[in-house]
C-alpha cells in the first residue's frame, strides 16, 4: 500500500533526524557589511584548499555575535563577522555559555560615503552640515531652536540650494553606529550644539539629544540594505544617501560621491586616516573550535594573508581598506591568541 510505504519512509526520516552527523565545513554568520568580504575569502578558500567551502551567513553584527556566544559545539557557529567591536555584554553572554576563548581579528577598514545621483549637484560636507541638516534641535543665532533648515543652502551657504532629503541607515545597522559617532556627534560638537544642549538638559541627556533626528520626513531611516538606498535615490534625484565605500565603488556610474571635510573618500584617503568617517571591520573566532572544525585555522590564516587581505588582494579590490598593521594580526592569528579583556 502506497500510504504505508510513505509513512514508513517518513518515520525513517524522523529517526535519521535524531543523529546529526559531524560537521566538516566552517560556519560563519554576522555583519552584512563584512559578508561580501567573507564570501570572497570563502570562495577562494574552497577553490585552493582541500577543505569544503565555508558556509557564510549575514544577519547583522549583533545577531552574529550573539550566535557565536550561544555555546561551544558543532551546532554553534565558528566565526562571527562584525562591523563594530564586540561589547562587554556579548563577552559576558559568552562566558555564561562556556565560550571563554574568543580571538579578535581586525581585517581592515571600511569607509562610509555620502552620495547623490550621478547627475546631481556637487556636495562638500562637514559633519556640522549634517548635524544642522538632520538634528532635531540646532543652534541658530546663538539660541537652541527646533530645526528650521529647509535646503542645504540654509545649512551652509556654500552648499547648493537643494531641499534636504537624506536616506540614512536604520538603527539596526552597524553603519548607523558609525554615522552617529563620526558624523552626528562630531557635528554636534563642531556646531556648538552640544554645549548648548548640555547646558539646557544636563550632561547625559544633552549628549543623547545630539543623536536625536528631526521627524518631519527629511531624514529617512532605511532598514534595508544599500540596494534599497540606491533605489530610493533613483526615485528621489535630490536626495543624499549613505553607503559603504565598496558599494559605492561598485556603482560609480550611478552615484556622485560627496567630500567630507574636503576629503574624497577612497581606499587611499581612508588608509591614511584623512577621511573621517571610517571604521574597522572584525571577525571573532571561537578558539575552542580551532583544531576541532577541520580547516578553521587554515581559513583564518588565509583570510589575513597578504595575498587576500593585503593592499593588492581581492578584498582591497572590492573596497576594503587594508590594515597597515596586518603583519601583527597575522602573527596573532598564527599563534591563536585570544583577545584580552576590553578596556
Amino acid at each position, binding site marked *: 500500500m502506497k500510504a504505508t510505504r510513505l509513512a514508513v519512509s517518513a518515520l525513517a*526520516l524522523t529517526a*535519521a533526524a535524531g543523529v546529526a*552527523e559531524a560537521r566538516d565545513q566552517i560556519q560563519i*554568520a554576522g555583519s552584512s557589511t563584512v559578508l561580501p568580504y567573507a564570501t570572497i575569502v570563502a570562495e*577562494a578558500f574552497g577553490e585552493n584548499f582541500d577543505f569544503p567551502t565555508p558556509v557564510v551567513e549575514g544577519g547583522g553584527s549583533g545577531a552574529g555575535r550573539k550566535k557565536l556566544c550561544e555555546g561551544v559545539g558543532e*551546532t554553534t557557529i565558528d566565526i562571527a563577522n562584525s562591523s563594530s567591536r564586540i561589547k562587554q555584554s556579548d563577552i559576558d553572554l559568552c562566558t555564561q555559555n562556556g565560550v571563554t576563548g574568543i580571538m579578535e581579528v581586525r581585517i581592515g577598514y571600511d569607509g562610509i560615503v555620502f552620495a547623490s545621483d550621478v547627475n546631481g549637484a556637487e556636495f562638500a560636507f562637514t559633519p556640522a552640515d549634517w548635524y544642522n541638516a538632520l538634528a532635531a534641535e540646532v543652534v541658530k543665532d546663538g539660541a537652541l531652536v527646533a530645526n528650521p533648515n529647509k535646503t542645504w543652502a540654509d545649512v551652509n551657504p556654500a552648499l547648493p540650494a537643494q531641499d534636504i532629503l537624506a536616506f540614512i541607515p536604520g538603527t539596526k545597522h552597524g553603519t548607523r553606529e558609525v554615522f552617529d559617532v563620526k558624523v552626528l556627534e562630531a557635528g554636534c560638537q563642531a556646531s556648538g550644539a552640544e554645549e548648548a544642549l548640555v547646558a539646557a538638559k544636563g550632561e547625559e541627556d544633552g549628549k543623547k539629544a545630539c543623536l536625536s533626528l528631526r521627524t518631519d520626513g527629511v531624514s529617512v531611516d532605511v532598514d*534595508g540594505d544599500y540596494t534599497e538606498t540606491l533605489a530610493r535615490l533613483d526615485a528621489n534625484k535630490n536626495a543624499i544617501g549613505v553607503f559603504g565605500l565598496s558599494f559605492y*565603488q561598485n556603482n560609480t556610474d550611478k552615484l556622485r560621491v560627496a567630500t567630507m571635510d574636503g576629503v574624497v573618500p577612497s581606499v587611499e584617503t581612508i588608509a591614511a586616516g584623512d577621511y573621517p568617517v571610517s571604521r574597522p571591520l572584525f571577525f571573532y573566532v571561537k578558539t575552542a573550535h580551532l583544531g576541532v572544525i577541520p580547516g578553521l585555522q587554515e581559513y583564518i590564516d588565509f583570510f589575513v594573508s597578504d*595575498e587576500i587581505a593585503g593592499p593588492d588582494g581581492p578584498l582591497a579590490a572590492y573596497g576594503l581598506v587594508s590594515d597597515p598593521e596586518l603583519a601583527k594580526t597575522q602573527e596573532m592569528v598564527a599563534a591563536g591568541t585570544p583577545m584580552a579583556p576590553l578596556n
Partner: protein
Amino acid sequence: MTATAQTAAAQTAPPRRSLTVLDARTRRRNAAEARFRLFGLMAIAVGIAALFILLASVLANGAGSFRQTFLFLDVHLDEKVLDKSGTRDPEVMNKVTTIGYGKIVDAALKDAIAKNGIAIEGLTDKDVSDMISKEAAALVRDRVLADPTLVGQTIAVKVLANGRIDGYLKGRVTMDSAERDSNVSPNQLRLADAMIEKGLLVKSFNWGFITGPDASELRPEAAGLGIAILGSAYMMLVVLVLSLPIGVAASIYLEEFAPKNRFTDLIEVNIANLAAVPSIVFGILGLAIFINFAGLPQSAPIVGGLVLTLMTLPTIIIATRAALKAVPPSIRDAALGVGASKMQAVLHHVLPLAMPGILTGTIIGLAQALGETAPLLLIGMVAFVRDYPAAPPEGFFDPAAALPVQVYNWTQRADPAFVERASGAIIVLLVFLMVMNAVAILLRRRFERRW
C-alpha cells in the same frame, strides 16, 4: 419582499403583455445582468494585466541571465609556474593557488590579442586581466589537477568574461557609463568590440546559471542556481514525504472516525487558525525546536523541510477533509452494507475517490511552501553555500540554499549584474513550480474516477 411587490404590480397593471416587447423592469434586470458580467470581465482583465506586467518585467529583466559572454582562449600551461618540481606530484601542484593560474590565463588572453592583431591605445595589463572572470583561473586549475599530464601543453578553454563586459554585450554597460564606472574602462569595451569581431568573445547559452553554485560579489557572472535548486527539491521531498501521510491520516481520522464533540470541534477550529498563522512564526518555532533543541544542523534542507511541513499541514488537512466530505455517503453505505469494515470502506472506496481533491490540496500546499522565504531566513537557509549537498538522505543534512531565498539574497548584492540574475532565478522558480504542477495534474488525471 419582492413577492409582495410583484403581486402588487400584478394587481395594478393590466395583464395583457407581449413577450417580444421588453417592459421597463425586464430591461432593468437585463441591464443589471450585463453590468454584472462586465464587472466580472473587468476583474479578470485586471488580474490578467497584473500577471502580464509581472511576467513581462521578470522575463525582460531575467531572460539575459540564461545567456552569458564567454571567451575562447588557448592557455599554455607553463610548467615553470604550475609545477616547479617537475614531478607532477599532486601535493606540490596543489600549492599553486588560483592567483598563479590567473596569471597564466591573463597571459593567454594577451597572446590572443597580439595574435589577432588587435591594438588599442592605452590598454593596461589590468584592463586585459579584468576582461576575464576570476572563475576562469579556478576552472583551469581544476582541469590541471584532475589531469596533471596537461602541464606543459596548450589547452583550448571556454571561460566566462567579466560581469561588466557581459553587461556591455547585454546593453547594461555603455561607453558613457564606463567613463564613470571604476570597474570597467572604455578601453576594455573597445577591446571587447574588437574581440567580438574576431570571434573571440561570444554570447552563448549558460548552463552554469542553472547548475553552478552561488558566487561571491567579485564574480557575479559565475553565480548559479544549482545548489538552490537542489536545496528546494530536497525540501519539497521532505515536505511531501512528511506532510502528505500525516495530513491524510489526520483528516481521515477527523472526518471518518472521530466522534463529534467539543474536543474535535476545538481541533477543527485550531487547524483552520493554524493555516492563517504567518509563516515567520513557523521559522521561529523551527529555530527553537529543530536547531536549538534537537540539535539539527543550520542551513540544512531537513530543517527547512520540517518547518515547511508544519506550515503545509493545515492546508493539506483542510483540503483533504473537503475532498473526503465530497465523496457521496452512498459509497460508504454500500461498502458497509456488503460487510466491509469501516477501515476497508475508507481505504478501499472513499480514499481513492477523494484522491484527486487530496492531490490538489497537496499541490497548493507545496506551491506555497516552495515560494516561502521568511521562515527559511531564520533557520540559516540564507547562507552563502558553494559545495553541493550530497545525495539524499545524507544530503538532507548538508548546507544548501533555496530558490526564493536565493532571489532575496541576490537582490541585496551591490553589483548590478545580480539584478538580472535575481530575475533569472525567479524564472527558474516559476518553471520549477510549473513542473511540479504538471506532475500533479498528470497524477490527478490517473487517479480520477467517476461514479
